């Protein structure tokens, strides 16, 4: 006789298991656990909105309160995915409006969100609390007005990096006077158009639990002091334009306002900085763990002054104006640094405008033992620097290097950078994310396939010599989930030989490579659980011989079959037929 716990006990135990991965594991133990778990699952994460249909999700998980969806492939960030490709959230909202009246949280990334979707959210979910739109587009301030007025218990409204049609700054006035529930408000992406500043200040003033506030560029420096004084409990603050004529009273007022925020740990914003106002931040600097100066066009000396006041800094985003000297100062001041992102101030200029080289990266790797996550744009690199970095930072989990000119060799030895990246994957055994650049042969992929066993996401551009490169990655990287490739000589052989691998991954993107249309059709035919999408804006792929390479290929696993919302320039290879 089997002896098992009553369902309620199991359900209670499962309620302590929050992570999606663990929940998924629990549900595979046995049929009864599957049943119990699905009824008490409250949070669902769907990494690719086309991998499953809304109906399927609702059928399996009838009592969801929080959903996270991702739409377009990552390369959409760099305009490689044509507008209109897809990623519409409306069908999801429509289905959930009926099935999940108690839905509280919606988090979306790279999806197309219309005002209609936002209005439907506001109308359908009476207890709606959290809306995060990360890199989304398709909506206007009208949709935001609907959310503001319709969601009586709204806690979080985060529009980070989304593209909003700024029709009117008055949407903020749609938050009723009775709204006091806001905990997080991020409107930094809104244009410079007028935002109703008085409405913002009143809203901030009446929300005592507001701990994260990121305003947009329309909020000028002189208004910041007022806002901060309304919300001294802030932990995370994003300024607007940090610029004004230098006046001592404004400076001291601002300094006073900042010093009244005893919990402030994270700062961002800083468009158009007047360096003379930076000292207003000094009282906060000692507690600062996160600083985003990636829009601030201030020079190295000013950055060094500021950063040297921040010994607790864990995360720094900055422009390459920091230069090697600034990174050396960072390395000596900020021993707790875990994440560094250095963005290019002049990505399209042919001329070297700043002295930021491989030296800066090495300095930080040497001085900051906790460094885990790096995004680094520069114009020159050496294998030696990469090897040193790898040896200094064996705990690195994310390493993204972008040498601005494609196919740039080691500038000292003129060799490819295979050995350098090889050292990264060999020493950093927990590496989950890697972006390559510079001159690279098939050899680097051999290293990656051999050592990068925990790698989940790989981005490749202008690299490799042959199919062997792709084959090494697909056959060697056991944990690979996302692979995105552009402008590499990878083609049919490696793709078809590793077709089964693609079902273990979330997605594969290949553009400007040498995968033929015939191979795409074959892949679609042999692998029914993969959606094979060919994207071509100039003409249908069957207008040319089958051996011709396709422009863009996006392959992803799906349990719901080919989608039906494709635009005219996307074709799906379903069972060898072209569907449209």
């Amino acid at each position, binding site marked *: 006789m089997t002896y098992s716990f009553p369902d309620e006990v199991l359900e209670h135990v499962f309620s302590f298991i929050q992570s999606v991965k663990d929940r998924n594991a629990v549900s595979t133990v046995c049929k009864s656990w599957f049943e119990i778990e699905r009824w008490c699952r409250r949070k669902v994460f769907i990494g690719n909105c086309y991998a499953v249909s809304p109906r399927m999700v609702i059928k399996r998980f009838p009592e969801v309160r929080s959903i996270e969806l991702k739409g377009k492939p990552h390369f959409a960030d760099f*305009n490689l995915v*044509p507008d*209109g490709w897809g990623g519409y959230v409306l069908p999801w909202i429509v289905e959930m409006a009926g099935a999940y009246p108690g839905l509280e949280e919606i988090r979306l990334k790279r999806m197309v969100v219309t005002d209609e979707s936002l209005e439907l959210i506001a109308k359908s979910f009476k207890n709606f609390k959290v809306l995060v739109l990360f890199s989304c587009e398709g909506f206007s301030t009208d949709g935001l007005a609907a959310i503001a007025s319709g969601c009586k218990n709204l806690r979080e409204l985060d529009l980070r990096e989304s593209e909003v049609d700024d029709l009117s700054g008055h949407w903020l006035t749609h938050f009723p006077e009775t709204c006091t529930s806001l905990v997080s408000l991020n409107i930094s992406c809104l244009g410079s158009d007028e935002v109703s500043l008085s409405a913002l200040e009143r809203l901030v003033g009446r929300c005592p639990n507001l701990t994260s506030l990121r305003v947009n560029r329309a909020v000028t420096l002189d208004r910041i002091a007022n806002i901060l004084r309304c919300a001294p409990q802030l932990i995370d603050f994003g300024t607007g334009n940090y610029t004004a004529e230098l006046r001592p009273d404004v400076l001291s007022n601002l300094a006073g306002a900042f010093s009244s925020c005893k919990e402030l740990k994270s700062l961002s914003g800083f468009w158009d900085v007047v360096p003379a106002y930076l000292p207003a931040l000094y009282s906060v600097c000692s507690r600062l763990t996160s600083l985003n100066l990636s829009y601030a066009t201030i020079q190295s000396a000013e950055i060094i002054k500021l950063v040297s006041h921040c010994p607790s800094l864990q995360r720094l985003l900055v422009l390459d104006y920091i230069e090697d000297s600034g990174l050396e100062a960072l390395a000596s001041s900020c021993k707790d640094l875990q994440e560094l992102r250095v963005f290019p101030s002049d990505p399209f200029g042919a001329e070297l405008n700043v002295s930021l080289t491989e030296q800066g990266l090495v300095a930080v790797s040497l001085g900051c033992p906790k460094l885990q996550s790096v995004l680094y744009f520069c114009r020159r690199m050496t294998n030696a620097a990469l090897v040193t970095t790898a040896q200094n930072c064996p705990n690195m989990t994310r390493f993204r290097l972008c040498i601005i000119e*494609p196919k740039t060799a080691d500038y000292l030895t003129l060799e490819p950078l295979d050995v350098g990246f090889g050292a990264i994957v060999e020493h950093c055994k927990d590496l989950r994310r890697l972006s390559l650049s510079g001159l690279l042969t098939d050899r680097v992929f051999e290293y990656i396939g051999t050592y990068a066993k925990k790698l989940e996401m790989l981005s490749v*551009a202008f690299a490799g010599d042959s199919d062997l490169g792709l084959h090494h990655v697909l056959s060697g990287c056991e944990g690979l989930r996302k692979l995105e490739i552009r402008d590499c000589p990878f083609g049919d052989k490696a793709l078809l030989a590793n077709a089964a691998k693609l079902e273990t991954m979330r997605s594969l993107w290949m553009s400007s490579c040498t995968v033929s249309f015939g191979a795409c059709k074959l892949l679609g035919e042999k692998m029914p659980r993969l959606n094979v999408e060919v994207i071509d804006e100039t003409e249908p792929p069957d207008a040319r011989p089958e051996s*011709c390479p396709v422009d863009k290929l996006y392959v992803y696993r799906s349990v719901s079959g080919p989608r039906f919302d494709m635009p*005219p320039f996307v074709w799906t290879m379903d069972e060898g037929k072209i569907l449209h």
Partner: protein
Amino acid sequence: MEVGLKMGFEETELRLGLPGGGDGGEVVRKRGFSETVDLKLKLSSKQGSSGIDPNEEKMTGLTKEKNLLLSATDPAKPPAKAQVVGWPPVRSFRKNILATATQKSSSDESGGEKAAFVKVSMDGAPYLRKVDLRMYTSYHQLSDALAKMFSSFTIGNCGSQGVKDFMNESKLMDLLNSSDYVPTYEDKDGDWMLVGDVPWEMFVESCKRLRIMKGTEAIGLAPKAVEKCKKRG
């Protein structure tokens, strides 16, 4: 999403001619134009061999790079660097923001913006597209890119039109009275203008968004264009 038939419509050629040769009555511009620039919006059928150049090879990213190599129209300026789509991998909002920031902080006004993303809408098309105007150095290149972008849409009833010349007021009115498509743009002041009116650089700096509208709808923009024609004589 049914967008309609892709076959059976004729090639539409639309040309906008810029005023040729400066003369006394012309307003002083940043750069003088001594040649006529044609803006062609070719929306051709995808089906069959008509409209498709059999010699047009499938482009890899590298060939595209060559195609984007910009030739200077002004011999005094060195050729701009070739720009590859999506490289370096910097997000658009960051590019646009940096552009405005560096413009303000530098005293050099003619440096201009490093990236200029604008939305492009076409009447009848179900969604918007975006272009970076800095990817092109002439109306010619822009019109090629636009034609490629919108060639996947049907453009309905359009007859084949000959060359339209903005220098001639009556021909301009003809164009605007037809059902052809006319590229227009919204400038910094919020005014809608016909594309092709001003020198390319000026256009890039003042263009906020593009709209490809039917000639009959663009008729309202005619007065400005006509006025300009009259100024040039």
